[in-house]
């Protein structure tokens, strides 16, 4: 089990990120590297206990049409690498993915609210992050100018 923040609470998830060459596809509740998943589609057909993780330099469009996944995790190689925000946005808005989008990697509390607004709903925090403090950072701003997940109309259409 992995400790994550989800639905505004600290939670335990059975889904764990795996990487490397020695992945046993028979194991359940794994979050597989996207390349591994795409190579093993035949073998994994019919499974409903699979997640995939996508690195910052990979294109989530590769998952179009394959979205019966429980979890898609998007990696932050560094907290100031912003590519995964666009990936999350595309997964939600363009590809229509409705499952869990989990932030993994260098995930720190001051970025959580931006992540939520782009479509992340689960956070596997970086080592050493205080989870209770992180929970408090989820909602700093009471409104936003832009369209965001959960705010389908920009402020100018609401004010």
């Amino acid at each position: 089990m992995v400790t994550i923040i989800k639905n505004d609470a600290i939670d335990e998830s059975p889904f764990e990120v795996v990487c490397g060459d020695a992945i046993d596809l028979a194991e359940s509740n794994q979050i597989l590297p996207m390349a591994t998943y795409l190579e093993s589609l035949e073998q994994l057909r019919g499974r409903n206990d699979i997640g995939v993780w996508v690195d910052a330099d990979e294109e989530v469009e590769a998952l179009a049409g394959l979205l019966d996944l429980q979890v898609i995790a998007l990696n932050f190689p560094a907290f100031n690498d912003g590519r995964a925000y666009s990936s999350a946005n595309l997964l939600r808005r363009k590809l229509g993915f409705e499952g869990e989008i989990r932030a993994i990697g260098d995930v720190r509390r001051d970025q959580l609210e931006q992540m939520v607004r782009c479509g992340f709903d689960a956070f596997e925090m970086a080592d050493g992050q205080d989870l209770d403090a992180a929970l408090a950072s989820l909602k700093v701003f009471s409104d936003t100018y832009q369209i965001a997940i959960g705010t389908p109309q920009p402020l100018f259409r609401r004010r």
Partner: protein
Amino acid sequence: MYKYDAYDQTMVDERVAQYRDQTERFLAGDLPADEFMQLRLRNGLYVQRLAPMLRIAVPYGMLSSDQLRKVAHITRQYDKGYGHFTTRQNIQLNWPLLEEVPDILAELATVQMHAIQTSGNCIRNVTADQYAGAARDEVDDGRPWAELLRQWSTFHPEFNWLPRKFKIAVSGAPKDRAAVQVHDIGIRILERNGEVGFEVLAGGGLGRTPVIGSVIREFLPKQHLLTYVEAILRVYNRYGRRDNKYKARIKILVRAMTPKVFAEKVEQEWAGLKDGPGTLTEAEINRARAAFETPDYDRALRDDDPINGAEGDKAFLVWMRNNVAEHKVPGYAIANIALKATGVAPGDVTDEQMEVIADLADRFSFGELRVTHIQNVTLADVPRKDLFSLWQELVAAELAAPNLDLLTDLICCPGGDFCSLANAKSIPVAEAIQREFDDMDYLHDLGEFHINISGCMNACGHHHVGNVGILGVDKKGEEWYQISIGGSADANAAIGKILGPSFARADVPDVVRKIVDVFVGHRADGEEFIDTYNRIGIQPFKDAVYPE
């Protein structure tokens, strides 16, 4: 000008609270320095050579007199009694205390100001023509569009961690006073068949690799401004380089993909956004426009109204010929306050001068003023008949330098006196050039002449687009200056060419003198420096500066 409603105010107030918390966590040791650095940069706070530097946002350069008074108060209370106007139309404080920055931000918030996104790899302050709304040659006022972009880009959740900083400029007139061709995105307002829209440029920029932006869309109907810009940013955020900060600006991506392929990629991305909820509504466009509706002009005034008290005052006439521009409303003028008096760092103003300027804005220009990207101040709506009275007040405050757009109206970054990035000092170079060229009549004869000085490759002083550009370089621990000529930031923007080996600081004024002499010797009737240069090329200048 645009006034906050409750939504805008709440966001700025919440940002102050958030930043206060981040500062307290840093001071308590709960937030690592590398992480706090990224967070404070997004609020305009650098840690500089001698002290922190706080960059306060002035969206598209517009300030009210009350806002400027507040800044004057802040410089007195929290700093050393002066501020610095920047080439991004912002205001910098050079000596604030890190611990007091949250209090400064709280004070700014009371007058609808902030320091949001004035640094860091995010969308920076949107700049515009300082004559917007007043210029006689204007197609449309750029400020409503710049304000719409400001709101859209403020705390944009997807674009707060870009590969590199991102700058957008808007120009609404054929004469480009906003340097749109050297911005990450340049927006030119056009009118086609009675419809307002935009020519969109991308991939311009200065810095280490200067590039003139490419047109990626010839005409974008106005309601699509935000969705189209969003598409550009998404392509850049995903595909811009992150492995090398010197190759991370959008200009490198556009060049690597070619402008044509980049434009196609943007169009593909935009197809999914076009006509969606991000599309501007007529109501919102009208709301933004109404915010900039011109104050109550006296429609009885005429351009040939006599200027009260001005008869035959030569110094006034020189100032007026040079610092005053035509206004679109009869009987009004645009008056420029050049912050380029010799011996004062370009763009620096004292607290008292700020208060004088604020008072003059109240008396002569409906309580509003603009900061320009050449580090001056514009009073955009002055009745012509009052120009002499205004000038007398400026003289008394030592703000009447009559050198707008002349050789001594230099652009100059803070340089090695303040900035930790700089290779060399720039302010003393500016001063030495101003001292070398102290004959106003001669300067007028030379005409429009732009010298831009940067203390390092980051090009905050826009040296690439100066007619003469001066770049501080480090040579074995010593400060040297590389000189380029032929740059231009006007509608025919051009990147200057390097003249040759660099010079010691003491030699720079003399080199500029030689360049000017070549210009004067070759000048044909009616030519500005850049015309002569374009006609005769670089060689005669090289020959004069580097004799065999």
